[in-house]
């Protein structure tokens, strides 16, 4: 069976019809009626390559009450994603080939997006001994991204060895940059006047920046590739910009929440806004937007971090870190980047699809919209607005920091290898 998409604006560059057949893009142009083809009227919609998120937490195995691979896949599809990377900080940690293959298989079983496991860098995320990086890479899951996310690989010697070791199979270390001596596990509020007033333990930007600076120097020394997860400060942006100018192999991501929300939201002690690294002042937010626009920050990644309600209903300092992000990411980027003219839709395709797929080594995703390419596609309604309601969600969690906000630009449809997973904004 084939699918005809009528009149989609391809990356904002002009309207075309798309004929999808056998999971690939069979024809592009002005296409008349096709026998046996289902038709999607894409008048007014922008077609993007299926979105790719290199940073999600799916909570399975271990905390299936907060999210499962199936529910997280559903949230991803609704958000326009066709591939997501599942972080390793589950229980147990993804640190073996078997654990990685299990996640891959559960993702395939759900069948809504390609779920690619991230492997742990160190055993138990303890930062001391390397996990079985090579066996994970050689497994059916073909793990290429390794991260202790949630924890920083803070020991410089361990980080150096990890960077060197993964070169054997083209891997990359995605670093959660947080010097634990400068921002310990209690640190939860951007260090500044507000943390002083609120009496919350400060998480200074410098605790991120010193690790980013160290890691780019280690990447230079080893000739390896390092990826900086959830960049949150202007200082980190400066370091990354400098490193790129030196030709160092560094890539970086920013999250939708760090691109829009600011630290002042913490004034009411609502743990919904507790996230690691913390929300920063507007100067940092501005710097991140500019860096995403000029390519210093390569990609958007959600750091989707669902939590059961009761894990957020503690005092601020005791509540769990993290915000949800899969379902709202495209709308946020549309609002803060496309709306003000910082990125066009071709730019969005770069930062939310092509580059994340390249960093993660996913060959079937982030491809150009061209004949013969896999039909992983996202149709966006650029003029539709949505007022986010946390209860309208296919995720199992509700820790949604966007609740009540009105965003412009919504996902209309998602296609995974030609099969619609989402139509008219809802799961098929």
């Amino acid at each position, binding site marked *: 069976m084939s699918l005809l998409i009528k009149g989609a604006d391809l990356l904002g560059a002009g309207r075309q019809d798309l004929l999808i057949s056998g999971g690939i893009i069979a024809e592009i142009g002005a296409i008349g009626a096709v026998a046996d083809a289902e038709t999607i009227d894409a008048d007014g919609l922008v077609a993007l390559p299926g979105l790719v998120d290199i940073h999600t937490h799916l909570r399975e195995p271990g905390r299936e009450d907060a999210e499962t691979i199936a529910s997280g896949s559903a949230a991803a599809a609704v958000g326009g994603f066709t591939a997501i990377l599942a972080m390793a900080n589950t229980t147990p940690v993804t640190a073996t080939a078997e654990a990685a293959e299990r996640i891959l298989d559960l993702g395939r079983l759900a069948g809504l997006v390609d779920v690619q496991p991230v492997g742990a860098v160190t055993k138990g995320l303890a930062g001391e001994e390397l996990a079985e990086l090579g066996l994970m890479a050689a497994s059916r899951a073909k793990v290429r991204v390794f991260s202790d996310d949630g924890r920083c690989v803070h020991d410089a010697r361990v980080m150096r060895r990890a960077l060197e070791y993964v070169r054997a199979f083209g891997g990359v270390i995605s670093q959660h940059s947080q010097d634990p001596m400068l921002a310990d596990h209690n640190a939860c509020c951007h260090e*500044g006047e507000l943390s*002083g007033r*609120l*009496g919350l333990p400060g998480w200074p930007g410098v605790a991120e920046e010193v690790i980013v600076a160290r890691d780019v120097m280690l990447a230079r020394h080893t000739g390896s590739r390092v990826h900086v997860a959830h960049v949150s400060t202007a200082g980190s942006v400066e370091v990354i910009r400098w490193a790129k100018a030196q030709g160092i192999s560094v890539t970086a991501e920013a999250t939708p929440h760090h691109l829009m929300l600011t630290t002042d939201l913490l004034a009411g*002690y609502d743990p919904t806004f507790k996230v690691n690294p913390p929300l920063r002042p507007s100067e940092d937010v501005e710097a991140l937007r500019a860096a995403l626009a000029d390519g210093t920050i390569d990609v958007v990644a959600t750091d989707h971090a669902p939590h059961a309600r009761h894990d957020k*209903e503690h*005092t601020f*300092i*005791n509540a769990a870190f993290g915000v949800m992000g899969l379902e709202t990411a495209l709308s946020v980027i549309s609002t803060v980047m496309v709306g003000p003219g910082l990125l066009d839709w071709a730019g969005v395709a770069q930062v939310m699809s092509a580059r994340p797929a390249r960093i993660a080594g996913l060959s079937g995703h982030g491809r150009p919209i061209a004949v013969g390419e896999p039909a992983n596609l996202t149709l966006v309604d650029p003029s539709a607005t949505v007022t986010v309601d946390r209860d309208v969600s296919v995720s199992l969690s509700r820790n949604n920091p966007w609740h009540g906000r009105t965003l412009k630009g919504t996902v209309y449809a998602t296609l995974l290898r030609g099969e619609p997973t989402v139509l008219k904004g809802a799961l098929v």
Partner: protein
Amino acid sequence: MKRHLLSMNDLDKQGILTILDTAESMHDVQRREVKKLPTLRGRTVVNMFFEDSTRTRSSFELAGKWLSADVINISGKGSSTSKGESLRDTVRTVAAMGVDGFVIRHSASGAAQQVSEWVDAVVINAGDGTHEHPTQALLDAYSMRRRLGDLEGRHVAIVGDLTHSRVLRSNLICLKTLGARVTVVAPPTLMPSGITTWAKSEGFEASYDFDAVLPTVDAVMMLRVQRERMSGGFFPTEREYTVSYGLTRERLRSLQEHTVILHPGPMNRGLEIATDAADAAQSLVLDQVSAGVAVRMSVLYHLLAGEGAVA
């Protein structure tokens, strides 16, 4: 007056003065042989102390009892993140028994505010982490006012571990609202984050030089310095701290005659305050404790007695 007392920001100048004035008459009750008023008869107040405290808890307990409220005390540690009862469940369980007022002490900043969003009862903050301790600021203001009169234009120095002090934050707001001039004094490592912009926007001063501030102050409030801070690298030795920021015998002599000395307790004699200073005629340390009960009676009265009640 607002429904809860979560922060000193909940009270304007008139509100503070009303509470202090009522505290004066409560103080008279406290000195009577029979210390009981019928004001809160039939009302139930729960003191929920998730953090150890002897003086604040007993002060609130006496205040409630002398106003004839039914007072119960619940103590225990805050629940952990992923296991056990959430704070919301804990307080809602107690609220469901039919409680009119919660007095909350918790080691986490913001706890009292969160509780106020989860229960229908009146919530009084008895100290939340390193955020605020409003009744302490009120009893400090009460004690200073009795000795110095109107605090408008008076100069108060607050000295010590400012970073970790909820007493500081409540006092800053209270004293500024009352029109006092405030200088906070500490080594840079014990100043709260963002103190420079904070001081500028709120109109107080910050100094590293205790001796430069001392001669002009009308009140000096010494804050407790925990010895554990030394291992955290906040200062090198006790000796160096005392020499630089302690209210020593020598500094006591350089105070003006009318200058009063406060300390919220418990004191580290010999570290932040010399025994001569703690026990000097100018010291209000015991007055503060005694004022604590009267001020808390006043707060309970204003927040729980309801319309038409008479003190």
